[in-house]
């Protein structure tokens, strides 16, 4: 065999291995997806699923509207709390990166990212539930906000760092204040990347169960009042999936499928936003 042929063969084998590995990595993903779709789709085909709340077992027409709204309210409140703070924090990391505050923020974000979400739930329980002896959607949203914060901070930091230094210099050379350059010039140039981070944080928060166990707790009834205990889609999965009642199990699968679809949509959207960010940064 000539040297060239040997090289071609080696190349072919290496390629085959790489493809095999890639396919292997796809197996769990596609299994989860297929299995959830197969089990969850029936629930999603009933309108009741979206517009009704829980009913006693055996009575038809039950739904998870209370959980959908609970997730929306808690994640919405958590976003209001964590996204602005996270964006300012992330900008601070890049623009004033050497200041002492920045190193604290970075440390806090790193620790928070690694903290188990159940611990965050416990912390918020001690802070906002135990003293009032009352679970609440608000406590749930605080727990989710704590979870989201480091994701937003780090994504903002990465997006802002992509903005070329020349843009800052050009702004400062016009006599603009540093904070204005950071917030009104650099941050808009990083907007698609920041948006990506915020969306990923939202998807993560929407899918979390553990932080809600001792905070939002769950609620069989429909409520939009964050002072009350609140249900959420992951809590439905958690509570209903292992019950002996097929109707509840079906609901749990439905809720799981909704969460997966949400994550999928958010990821696709964030990819698009990230591509725009890179294109934008390239042009500046």
């Amino acid at each position: 065999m000539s040297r060239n042929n040997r090289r071609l063969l080696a190349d072919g084998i290496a390629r085959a291995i790489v493809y095999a590995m890639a396919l292997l990595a796809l197996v769990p993903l596609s299994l989860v997806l297929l299995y959830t779709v197969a089990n969850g789709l029936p629930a999603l085909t009933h309108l009741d699923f979206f517009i009704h709340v829980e009913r006693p077992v055996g009575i038809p027409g039950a739904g998870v509207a209370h959980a959908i709204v609970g997730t929306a309210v808690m994640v919405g409140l958590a976003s209001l709390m964590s996204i602005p703070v996270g964006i300012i924090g992330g900008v601070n990391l890049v623009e004033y990166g050497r200041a002492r505050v920045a190193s604290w923020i970075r440390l806090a974000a790193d620790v928070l990212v690694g903290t188990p979400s159940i611990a965050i739930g416990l912390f918020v329980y001690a802070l906002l539930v135990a003293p009032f002896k009352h679970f609440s959607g608000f406590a749930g949203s605080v727990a989710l906000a704590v979870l989201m914060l480091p994701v937003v901070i780090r994504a903002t930091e990465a997006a802002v760092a992509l903005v070329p230094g020349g843009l800052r210099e050009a702004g400062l050379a016009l006599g603009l204040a540093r904070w204005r350059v950071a917030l009104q010039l650099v941050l808009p140039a990083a907007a698609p990347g920041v948006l990506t981070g915020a969306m990923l944080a939202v998807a993560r928060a929407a899918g979390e169960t553990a932080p809600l166990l001792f905070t939002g707790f769950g609620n069989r009834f429909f409520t939009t009042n964050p002072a009350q205990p609140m249900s959420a889609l992951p809590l439905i999965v958690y509570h209903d999936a292992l019950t002996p009642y097929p109707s509840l199990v079906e609901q749990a699968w439905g809720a799981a499928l909704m969460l997966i679809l949400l994550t999928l949509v958010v990821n696709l959207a964030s990819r698009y936003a990230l591509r725009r960010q890179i294109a934008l940064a390239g042009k500046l």
Partner: protein
Amino acid sequence: MQEKERGSTLAAPTASAQLRTLPGGTETRISIEGVDFYYGRFQALNDIDLKIQDKRITALIGPSGCGKSTLLRILNRMYDLVPGSRAEGRVMFEGENILTARNLLELRQNIGMVFQKPSLFPMSIRDNVGFALRLHGWKKSRVAEAVERSLKDANLWEEVKDRLDAPGVSLSGGQQQRLSIARCLAVQPKVILMDEPASALDPISTLKIEDLMARLVNDYTIVIVTHNMQQASRVADYTAFMLMNPENRAGELVEFAPTVELFQRPRDRRTEDYITGRFG
């Protein structure tokens, strides 16, 4: 391109540039007095004395790394962005020492800067020029007037007046650079610093920038860093030649004179070596 230019006979400066350097015609706008500059421990500039003349073009030339950009960035305190950097001496502008100036925003409005890369804002042509004015709190109608005036002053108006809302980055390289000059003019500086403003441009765009400078100097004081000696001899009224001291690598001012004199009768041997191309 630069290699070829060295050693060739340099273009004679225009008559107007010669007239502008006649003694007594102008006064000092910025007075650089005994300036040393440090990046941390490294001394980048040593004892620079230079008088920038009002409504004249002063060129800073010299080999790479001799501190031209550093000197330029002292004049609008851009070096403040580099942690650990520090300047000593005095740079007098309007009765105040720039090095100890408190109000950097006002200083940078008075002393604008154009960079090698246009670094346009991710906005429309119109907003690139008007952005700073809007943030400075100008009324809409005044901003619109200033945008038009600045684009006209930057010789760009005719080319963009029908597409003011197109993104700035959709323009050609030369147009982008003129847009960045318009952006700088909009805040009505008194002095314009230019760091190799044409070194990334084609010859025709370069000539347009040079024409523009010759017009702007009627109203502004201009300091330009250039690698291109022909460019210096074409546009500058005064030229400062800088060189790195081989012992401590600090940049020093070798010779400062009216451009005609510096290129035709250099007083320092090292200047002569450099402009005739006998020098790295």
